[in-house]
């Protein structure tokens, strides 16, 4: 199912399919947040934002507004 990174549930994995290059900081790309890579949602901050992900073995926290710019495809049964 196609959706954005912001819709991921805790512990769920997905594959990045596309991203809005103008809204995603280069630094995140350099950490390996690139199309084709697997991303896992590790933690959600107490008030729902930001989220804490593992992408390309980089452990990084981003805000939901950035996560919404990253399209992903869920990996079934990854929860």
């Amino acid at each position, binding site marked *: 199912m196609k959706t954005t990174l912001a819709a991921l549930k805790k512990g769920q994995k997905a594959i990045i399919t596309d991203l809005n290059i103008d809204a995603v900081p280069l630094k995140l790309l*350099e*950490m390996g947040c690139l199309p084709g890579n697997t991303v896992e949602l590790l933690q959600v901050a*107490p008030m729902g*934002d930001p989220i804490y992900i593992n992408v390309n073995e980089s452990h990084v926290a981003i805000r939901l507004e950035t996560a919404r710019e990253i399209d992903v495809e869920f990996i079934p049964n990854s929860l």
Partner: protein
Amino acid sequence: MAAHNILNIKIALIGNPNTGKTSVFNHLTGLNQQVGNYPGITVERKTGSCKLPNGTKGTVMDLPGTYSLNASSMDENVVIELLLNKNDKDYPDVAVVVTDVENLKRNLLLFTQIKDLELPTILVINMSDRMEKKGIALDIPYLEKLLKTRIALVSSRKGTGIDTIKELIVNYGALPTEPCLNASGIDNEYFNGLRNAFPNQLLYKLWLVITQDVNFGQLERKEIERNSSFAKSKAELKRMQQKETIKRYQFINDVLKTGQTIDNAKANDIRAKLDRVLTHKVFGYVIFLGILMLIFQSIFSWSSIPMDFIDESFAALASYTDTHLPPGKLTDLISQGIIPGIGGVVIFIPQIAFLFLFISILEESGYMSRVVFLMDKIMKRFGLSGKSVVPLISGTACAIPAIMSARNIENWRERLITILVTPFTTCSARLPVYTILISLIIPEKMVLGIFNLQGLTLMLLYLLGFGGALLSAWILNKILKLKHKSFFVAEMPNYKLPLFKNVGLNVLEKTKAFVAGAGKIILALSVIIWFLGSHGPGEAFSNATKIVSHQPENKTLPENELNDKITAYQLENSYIGIMGKSIEPVIRPLGYDWKIGVAIVSSFAAREVFVGTLATIYNIGSSGEDEATIKQRMDNEVDPITGKKIFNFATGASLLLFYAFAMQCISTLAITKKETNSWKWPMIQLIGMSGFAYVVSLITYQFLK
């Protein structure tokens, strides 16, 4: 001997944040480190000397941590500007790129970029002691071949592999310098054109000049863009940078597929378990609050013992020099100007050391990043970022490094607000002022059995500082009309037990820098104030003895009271007395006399000068009782008109609030100017904070008196 025989090899230490780069630096240089500081106080670029095999010497530069050569912060600019400018006197002979074995894939991105600069490069793979536990195996010869480098497998925790780095450095001439991949393949046509237009320049260097906004000496961006075929829009450039990044990762993935094997069954670690607790919606905040309480407890409770000792020792030393040196101007200068001045600096050391100790442990352990994660949503409401927590907490030590630590906030608007409000947090320079005023106006008693009333007051002042910062951030967030995209990327490093050596060195270096920086100002001002206080214009000063003793009401006084009157009269007519008297009308409504006025004016250079200034003024103004500490002298001060104590509750409270809010630190203003590149923002800080302080103190005094 031939001049080209290099006896001192210049080594640049480069790496991502959290790779243990500084530990490697500490191992290479031991204690032979020099910290290049900003004019104010703090760290920018660290260098150290290093003994290499065969009697060769090396100079190691510890460059700021960076994720890539695409600079997104001022710290990263430092790295790029150095590496792109061959004429820089610090241009390295050899680059040492430090990586973390657990994050090799990501860390290699920077390495491939450094390789493109065609510099002799050594790859250090750090934290190798964790490989077994994590099930990681590396094929070093294969990696060396494909990455076109030599590798040193190092554990900075265990201290292994350092000799390998040194061996490789000495033989840097044998290191391959060609790039390990051809990044220009992302747009052959564009890069071929570039190559033909600038045949004498390194292609990757040209590309960096085009994509970055930094100075590179002779090679200027304009020069390249004059040839319009190379000019591209920002969006186009970013797309190309994305392609470049993908290309680099493809290469790295291919290399690691064969060069690295990971046994995933072993890869599970305590990170997830600790994260679950430390970022928990209840426990997370409880733990954070607990840690903050512990820090404040240590500042005012544990450090009070060494501080009292220092205070008394300096008072004793001053009276000793006064009685044992031959009387005269020089002795006066030493015992009334220099010794109290130095004492005012030294007394800081315990508190500063404790603060830097805690902050450095929090950062080293990886916990600080969890706080950033935990606080982002809350801070965002005030126009700040989760990352603003680091400056706001470090601000309790000193606003200058704190403002500099705001550099890794990606969003300019959030960063600017952070810079502007950080000086509200209670820095250690305010502590001596608070400590002495609290001990004068708040009785030392316990409330509810366990809380020390003086301690509670101090805690309240800290909260007031944070409150002031948040409130002004909220106001600035409403006023500032800056549109900026909200970027927030915070790396969550693995938890590590802080290394004693790293923490110790960090505390030592920061404390030393602070004492040296603040010390110079305080010492100079003490001497100036002593001079202005013991000299004066005209008859009133030079003939004080005659004038006072001839006044009819003084004729019958006993000798020591007469002497007190004479010194007081002299002080009032000294240069400093005249200065103080002239500002008295402005500060009288706040409850301050002219002596406090002088202390406030002199503490516009730095707050901590307040206590030293009063010490100097009261020292000059007293003829007897030499053993008294600063506090006793202040407590004894009496208003000559009303006969009441000068430091009564209303004046004390008004002064406390004035120091809580006023902007009284030239170094902070200078760093704000530097970081914002404009005089507008430091001026807003100065006027806004000091104006607010004046109004609050005015209301407080008028209400309480």
